């Protein structure tokens, strides 16, 4: 079970949700806040600027050069009317751009470069106070004292913006608090919701924790959220598979131990019998019989080991299987069996269709399956017969067939194999059926582990057709 793995990355769901939503929400909040403040500031500025513009014009009107000099009517009365609508202090400066005349607050920061007849507005600081300044320059025509170059009049009016800043600060604070409260409320509701939604899962977890380690009953999915149902179904399927496998293994061990112990008992009996005998000839007979038993048992042992190996290998099949060339595989299997086949003058033939694709399966296992089938076919075929091995493509699968001209299999056995039943070792105990049956069981095991199946049938013209169906990799992955 993969319980240990999930525990390592365990994190409350609400934390995951929070991690996803919180940064985005915060970002959105901050962005909207900044936008609000910025637009408010722009609005405030434009209002300020409008009034500053008006004041500048008003002062402009009060500038008189009739005397030949530059005189400015004191703008304080004007400012007083201003002050009524404004919250800050109003400052002014009137000067000529050659610096000869300067009236007003001389310590105002110098304006940026001005173009004639142009109003410029900007923020600055005056004695540590923030101010908004409007500046305006116009040519003096005629210039004062007959100055040769162009002479310009510069009018600057500034208003302290503490009130504006305080206002903006208030807005910002209030908006932030409002958004923060909403955020916290949302988080709380979210976590409550998640908590409530997951309660059935928690009760399920408790139930599972209380189970005995070998309890393989199905999980009860009632009351669980819909999203989790598929998970529970998959877990139940896994549990079923494991249970079935456990049972099959138990059966196998029982059968195998019976199969192996019986010949040993027979041998024991034979030895005891031989020791009783005096006649060399009789002893030789017993010894011959013993040899037969030993041979059979050796073969059976070998096959049981193969079967165990096939089952074992199936468990370790993982991500990156080999790329098997079907033609090369069939060729190697044939070469392995050429000797015994030719001893009985049996012809072995290989046909591979041109549309064959590489197979993504562990080569050794497929090799063993085909080799087993071929071995059975050679044993079953009469002298001089032909055995054909073919590989071709089906619909989303590869088919490998071994056709022989032997007697085929009994209908009963065929039915048993077709129904997916494991070959029951306790059944037939005659020499041929045993090894054939066990070999076929091995083939079935292997095909199961490769995600395919073995289909056996008697051919109408006589002989057995054993077809291995290997689904393509994607199909196999889907089936998982």
């Amino acid at each position, binding site marked *: 079970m993969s319980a240990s793995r999930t525990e390592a990355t365990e994190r409350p769901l609400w934390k995951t949700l929070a991690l996803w939503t919180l940064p985005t929400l915060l970002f959105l909040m901050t962005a909207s806040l900044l936008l609000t403040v910025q637009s408010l500031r722009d609005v405030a500025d434009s209002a300020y600027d409008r009034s500053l513009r008006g004041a500048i014009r008003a002062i402009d009107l009060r500038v008189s050069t009739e*005397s030949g*000099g*530059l*005189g400015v009517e004191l703008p304080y009365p004007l400012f007083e009317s201003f002050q009524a609508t404004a919250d800050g202090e109003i400052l002014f400066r009137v000067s000529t751009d050659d610096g000869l005349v*300067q009236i007003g607050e001389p310590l105002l920061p110098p304006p940026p470069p001005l173009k004639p007849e142009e109003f410029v507005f900007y923020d600055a600081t005056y004695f540590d106070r923030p101010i908004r300044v409007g500046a305006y320059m116009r040519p003096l025509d005629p210039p004062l*004292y*007959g*100055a040769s170059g162009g002479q310009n009049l510069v009018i600057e009016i500034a208003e302290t913006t503490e009130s504006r800043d305080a206002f903006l600060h208030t807005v910002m604070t209030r908006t932030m608090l409002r958004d923060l409260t909403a955020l916290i409320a949302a988080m709380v509701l979210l976590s409550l919701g998640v908590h409530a939604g997951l309660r059935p899962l928690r009760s399920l977890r408790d139930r599972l924790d209380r189970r005995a380690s070998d309890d393989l009953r199905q999980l009860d999915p009632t009351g669980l959220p819909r999203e989790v149902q598929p998970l529970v179904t998959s877990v139940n399927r896994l549990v079923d598979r494991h249970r079935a496998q456990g049972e099959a293994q138990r059966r196998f061990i029982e059968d195998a131990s019976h199969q192996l112990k019986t010949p040993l008992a027979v041998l024991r009996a034979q030895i005891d019998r031989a020791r009783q005998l005096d006649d060399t000839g009789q002893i030789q007979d017993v010894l011959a019989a013993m040899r037969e038993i030993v041979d059979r048992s050796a073969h059976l042992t070998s096959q049981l080991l193969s079967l165990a190996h096939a089952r074992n290998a199936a468990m370790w099949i993982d991500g990156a299987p080999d790329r098997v060339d079907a033609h090369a595989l069939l060729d190697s299997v044939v070469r392995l069996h050429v000797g015994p086949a030719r001893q009985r003058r049996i012809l072995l033939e290989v046909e591979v269709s041109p549309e064959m694709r590489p197979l993504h399966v562990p080569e050794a296992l497929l090799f063993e399956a085909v080799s087993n089938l071929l071995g059975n076919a050679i044993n079953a075929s009469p002298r001089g017969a032909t055995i054909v091995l073919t590989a071709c493509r089906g619909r989303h699968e590869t088919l490998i067939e071994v056709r022989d001209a032997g007697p085929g299999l009994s209908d009963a056995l065929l039915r048993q194999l077709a129904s997916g039943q494991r070959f029951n070792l306790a059944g037939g105990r005659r020499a041929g059926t045993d090894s054939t049956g066990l070999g076929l069981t091995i083939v079935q095991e292997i095909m199961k582990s490769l995600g395919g199946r073995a289909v056996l049938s008697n051919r109408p013209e006589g002989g057995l057709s054993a077809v291995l169906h290997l689904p393509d990799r994607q199909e196999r992955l889907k089936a998982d």
Partner: protein
Amino acid sequence: MIRIDMMRAAALAAPAMILSSTIAFAQPENPECIAPAQPGGGFDITCKLAQAALTEAGILESPLRVSYMPGGIGAVAYSTVVGQRSDEPGTIVAFSSGSLLNLAQGKFGDHDENAVRWVASIGTDYGAVVVPADSPWESLGQMMDAIKADPGSVILGAGGTIGSQDWMKAALTARAAGIDHKTMRFVAFEGGGDCATALQGGHVQACMQDVGDSQAAIDGGAPLKLLAIFAPERLSGKLAEVPTAKEQGFDIQWPIVRGFYVGPDVSDEDYAWWAEAFQKAMAAPGYAALLESRNLLPMPMTGEELDSFVKSAVEDYRTLAAEFQLVQQ
């Protein structure tokens, strides 16, 4: 008969001839005194004093016209006279020590002290600190403390921008009080008149001005009071109530000479006429009273004497300006 007429005419003409023989040339037409500031300030008083003195002494038949040409505490007027009205014989322009200070800093444009012809000085004034009558400050020290505590809260007014004599008074006082003069906040006006108005409006808390124009305003009914006078010792008369800055622990004196100049192209004869005219006017018996009523002290200099006084004063001011890092050119 003709002989009798001619003798009569000669007899009649004699005093005129005597008179006119004492003044080498005829008086200029359209005599005008330019006060290079807004009305009500020191320059205004200077011109009006000249107006009164010349008329009382009988030197001018038609009274001296006073006109105003504000701008740069005399900078505009200086440049205008030098540039456009350099040879007008009837135009005199008021100046004060403050003008000389500005000249020393190069604030009168391209022109220096040699660009005009210095005619006469008619009196001297002293700098003063003026506050509203209901101001909480009773002494210069209190005012300085207030500035020390919160520099931005006390707005000083001055008849001139940074570097002007009014500003200099404040700077000197601040220096004496241990305040960095650069942290002072003040507003520049074109002359003491505007400053006094602002003071009354509450837009500034104190004005650095001259005794002459401040006292004139007070006499005129303005609710102001003098906090200190930058004189070596107390003045006489009603001004004796006002303590000097020195008394209050600020050893600063700021005498202000007031006088007149004419354009550089005015003829020698006209220049001499004006010099003589002032000499006579200041020698007249009623002159002292005129001075007193304007709270001024005598300082009669004309012609060469004034010229050299001006030149040396400008030199002194140059040094002072350097101390305060004020020189621009």
